[in-house]
């Protein structure tokens, strides 16, 4: 809760300063830019938070997003009706999620290696299918999924809000939320307490895979193009946002709201660098510095708590 309050304070404070420094920051146009471009990341960070809280993570997201968009895109270009292409795309996420879940949870292969392998495989298949030439020019009915506007606002955020709200609700008000926290806190203890950690873990990977596929499809609809570089690098941003928002890399801690606030804070900073015309070369250093501060503060907090208990 403390982390959430700190982030809210930081976001409000940063926004106030930025609104003074740039007349464009608090304009409707810029807020729409921020919201539109964060929407899919909100869905992804919700799934990633579930995994992190359960003591897991998934590096394959970018690859699954790309392969989904490419699979659906190529099918549509070849004349497959778009609803079928969408189903085929979702199948990519389902399969990737199952493979990730089984390898990490059932075979206990390190999540870093297992999910990175899936990312490679997805990226490789994407390149092999497209010969690196991105498919584009999809049916208009499909494009509506990513481009429809309601009062100037793209439909994207209307996907994100219910997903994030539902995920947050389940995490804090549902049995499954307790199980996720328990699994992340101590997997063996959770198992002994009756949590089916295998089913839960595989289920979380499948959920992340389906989210990644959904994002791949919506991105393809939004940009009317799909390719290997659509969201390349998003996975690490998701992990960073979740950690800034209070998710522990060791599992057992974090919230969806915190992760989304972490994402909002990161997005505001990147946006500010552009609006203020600051040197873009420092962007990654700034984000990295904030991430380091977040990780260190988490560690210090844990240490202090241990000292108090001792």
């Amino acid at each position, binding site marked *: 809760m403390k982390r959430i309050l700190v982030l809210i304070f930081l976001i409000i404070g940063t926004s106030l300063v930025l609104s003074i420094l740039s007349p464009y920051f608090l304009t409707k146009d810029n807020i729409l830019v921020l919201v539109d471009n964060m929407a899919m990341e909100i869905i992804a960070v919700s799934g990633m938070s579930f995994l992190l809280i359960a003591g897991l993570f998934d590096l394959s997201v970018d690859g699954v997003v790309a392969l989904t968009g490419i699979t659906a895109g190529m099918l549509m270009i070849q004349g497959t009706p778009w609803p079928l292409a969408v189903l085929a795309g979702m199948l990519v996420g389902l399969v990737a999620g199952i493979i990730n879940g089984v390898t990490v949870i059932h075979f206990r292969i390190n999540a870093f290696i297992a999910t990175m392998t899936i990312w490679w495989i997805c990226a490789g298949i994407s390149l092999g299918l497209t010969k690196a030439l991105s498919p584009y020019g999809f049916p208009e009915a499909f494009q509506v999924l990513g481009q429809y506007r309601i009062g100037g606002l793209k439909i994207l955020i209307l996907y994100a809000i219910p997903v994030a709200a539902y995920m947050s609700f389940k995490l804090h008000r549902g049995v499954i939320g307790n199980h996720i926290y328990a699994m992340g806190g101590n997997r063996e203890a959770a198992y002994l307490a009756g949590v089916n950690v295998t089913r839960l873990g595989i289920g979380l990977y499948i959920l992340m895979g389906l989210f990644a596929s959904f994002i791949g499809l919506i991105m393809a609809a939004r940009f*009317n193009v799909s390719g290997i570089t659509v969201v390349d690098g998003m996975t690490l941003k998701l992990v960073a946002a979740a950690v800034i928002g209070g998710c522990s890399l060791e599992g057992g801690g974090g919230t969806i709201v915190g992760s989304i606030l972490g994402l909002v804070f990161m997005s505001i900073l990147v946006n500010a660098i552009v609006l203020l*015309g600051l040197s873009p070369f420092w962007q990654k250093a700034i984000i990295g510095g904030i991430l380091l501060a977040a990780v260190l503060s988490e560690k210090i907090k844990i240490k202090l708590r241990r000292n108090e208990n001792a």
Partner: protein
Amino acid sequence: MRKLFMVCLVVLLVAVGCGSKEATVAPQPTTTESKGVYYLLTVNLHDPFHIPGIKGFTQAGVDLGIKTEVVGPTEYSLSEQLKTFETLIANPTTAGIHYQPIDLVAGEPMIEAAQAKGIPVTISLSNTPGKARSAFIGYDNVMFGGAAGEWIAELTDCKGTVGALGNSGPTVIIRIEAMFAYLAERCPDIKIVPFVTTDANLASGVATLEAYLVANPDMTLFWYADGLSGQLAPYWKDRQDLGSKTMFLATDMPPAALQAVKDGVFVGTVGQDTYSVEYFGLQLLYQASQGMRVPDTTLMAPILVDKSNVDQFIE
């Protein structure tokens, strides 16, 4: 007049040092040479930017009647590229290597090692400062940016606001700075806004571009100075449909970018003729392997593609 730098094969011979240079490898009998394999060592086999180059290299091999092969990493991996380079040097059938360096400095010892074994090495894309190679053919980024600047001056009539964005690679930054330098000198009345960089992915490109346009709502023209720009064509069309009047100048010539130029979505694209670069690259390599004199540095002129000439490139 500004259809200028046009269709490129006209090439500036810059002999940084001068003119031509004798191949640094010992000539060998033609019969032996023609039995060997001439390799194109690419930066990334999967980058669509290089696909025409691979075709050009292969076609040159057919035209010369020599055996060619294309090798290289499937992503931008310096270590993988250098490993492949070592393998080629060790291969007794290697007759020559046409090399696209990922890193200008790191490849230099490999070039020297190849030359020491009598294998000529020509390079494209990025010139190496050490000049151990037999010859360089490709683009100069300052010249590339200058050409873009000259075209932008014409498109904007030296009025309005001009910006630029692209990934943070040194190639892109050098181009943008050269473009701005040209405009600052040629068009003192033009307003130049600081460039911004993006991650090399579409989502980041769009988010950055949108924020850039919010901060500069009166932008007359911006140059998206890397090859990702083609992927933004459908997005930019959507924005145009919503009333945007800002001109989008793209970079490179993937099919999506050329179609966008044809449809009037992009005002144009500043292209690189990778087909010709690698076609003539193999010619140079072959000549070097025969002990013939080859130009030290061959610079290609950027291609400015607009509605008037886009059809020939689509074909």
